């Protein structure tokens, strides 16, 4: 039997770590029927005991758990087919008369449900929870504040955090004692160091070592980190070489780091204007290099990308602009802020396109050209272009309706 299953905690007190989160969950479950929120949403990285906590809690309070995994049940029909009947059977009347079934619905990995692709999936979850017939708990690794807004608004959000190596040590020491393994303390400490706060990973490494695997070839703890962990780590480092090593081990996140640092530097209240300008200039260079790498497959430029990125992170940390823990910032930047600009542009193009009886696309390119060339610096070029393309009138139109040179 898999050790992660075999040594799954039976009671809430056996769950190691996340003491405050466990306490909040117990409080919520004790009062769930009268709570304003429809359910509890446990958010945290994998392998830290979210599912284990739910099962241990259910066992403590005498609930029977009905688990739905978002990878199997995604659409409204399937979810209602599976658990809808419970929501309708257990009414307030049956609760008062004491005939309710002690059932807890657990939606595991609810972030796997996409509000657009899996039509109605999240609405079905809310619908079932709003009946308040049985307690509903959901768990997620990463919640998108835009996609899963409905969950964040209606569920009590309880954050679970990664365990410390010492807490991991307790977990694997307990298993090692119960299994009577012949492993010394140094090995257990090394496993807890390498597991990066992931209890499931630590147990699996323990098993691998027990069956004869070599701990040194298992994994490098600094490779392929989640983006939030990587950001937190690089923003707490004060040595450029260390930052570069860490970034080199996580090259899949370079672009994310670039955009997030652009965001951090832009809105940091503590950084001085000249320093901000300096960093933004480097970011623009890096953006160009990134474009070249992608467009021309010029992978030899990656070493420059890594060096400049680590310099930006190092200087940014030194000058006080550090990552402040808002995970989806770059998403906000990409989807929300740009969306406003897009909507504004769309309105502008509709307005001018209608007035001039031209297509939006044609007007956009022509006005953009005129707007750029209206800069006094390009006066000769502008006259020449206007003459060639017969766009003299367009300049007057653009100036009349106020499109600035910017």
């Amino acid at each position, binding site marked *: 039997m898999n050790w992660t299953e075999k040594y799954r905690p039976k009671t809430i007190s056996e769950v190691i770590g996340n003491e405050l989160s466990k306490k909040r969950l117990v409080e919520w479950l004790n009062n769930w029927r009268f709570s304003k929120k429809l359910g509890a949403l446990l958010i945290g990285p994998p392998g830290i005991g979210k599912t284990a906590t739910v099962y241990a809690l259910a066992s403590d309070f005498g609930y029977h758990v009905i688990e739905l995994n978002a990878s199997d049940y995604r659409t409204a029909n399937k979810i209602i087919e599976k658990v809808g009947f419970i929501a309708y059977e257990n009414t307030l009347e049956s609760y008062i008369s004491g005939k309710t079934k002690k059932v807890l619905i657990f939606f595991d990995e609810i972030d796997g449900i996409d509000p657009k692709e899996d039509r109605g999936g999240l609405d079905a979850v809310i619908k079932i929870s709003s009946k308040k017939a049985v307690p509903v708990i959901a768990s997620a690794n990463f919640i998108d504040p835009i996609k899963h807004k409905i969950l964040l608004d209606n569920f009590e959000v309880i954050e679970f955090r990664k365990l410390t190596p010492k807490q991991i040590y307790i977990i694997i020491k307990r298993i090692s004692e119960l299994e009577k393994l012949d492993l010394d303390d140094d090995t257990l400490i090394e496993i807890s160091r390498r597991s990066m706060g992931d209890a499931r990973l630590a147990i699996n490494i323990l098993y691998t070592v027990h069956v004869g695997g070599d701990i040194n070839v298992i994994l490098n703890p600094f490779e392929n980190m989640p983006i939030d962990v990587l950001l937190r780590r690089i923003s*707490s480092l004060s040595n450029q070489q260390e930052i570069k090593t860490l970034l080199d081990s996580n090259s899949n996140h370079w672009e994310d780091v670039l955009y997030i640092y652009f965001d951090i530097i832009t809105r940091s209240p503590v950084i001085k204007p000249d320093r901000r300008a300096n960093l933004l200039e480097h970011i623009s260079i890096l953006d160009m290099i990134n474009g070249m790498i992608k467009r021309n497959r010029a992978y030899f430029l990656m070493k420059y990308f890594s060096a400049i990125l680590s310099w930006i992170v190092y200087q940014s940390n030194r000058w006080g602009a550090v990552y402040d823990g808002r995970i989806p910032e770059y998403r906000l930047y990409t989807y929300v802020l740009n969306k406003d600009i897009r909507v504004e542009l769309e309105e502008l193009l509709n307005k001018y396109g209608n007035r001039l009886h031209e297509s939006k696309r044609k007007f956009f390119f022509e006005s953009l050209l005129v707007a750029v060339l209206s800069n006094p610096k390009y006066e000769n070029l502008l006259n020449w272009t206007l003459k060639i393309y017969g766009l003299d009138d367009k300049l007057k139109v653009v100036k009349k309706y106020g499109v600035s040179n910017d």
Partner: protein
Amino acid sequence: MEYQTIRYGEPFQIRRRLGNLFKDIVRIKGVEYERGKGFIVRDYYALTNLNKILIRMGLILTPMVKCVICDKNIECEKCSFTDVCLKDVTTCLCDECLYSDDVVEKYLSTSRGYFEDFRRSI
């Protein structure tokens, strides 16, 4: 440079006149201010950001987390796991408790006692 020791999740007063920096400090995610009590820091990374501001006034806040078993203060920076730990916790274990023989039993009994007390209180 002056060092001030604080515990996560517990209120404290900053030994400096903050002036305009007060706004910057309460904007940090994970730092709260309760009138009459003082600032509360929720996690390690909030403290890192807070220290970036306070260091300019010659003050560094040193974090302490509580040992679950013996309630002793533990300083994260002096811990042997500091290079691999995310430090995103309010409770941990001190070295004496960690390397004692019956650490698992001690941890579980503390946790059991804590939750039984808690269940009785609700």
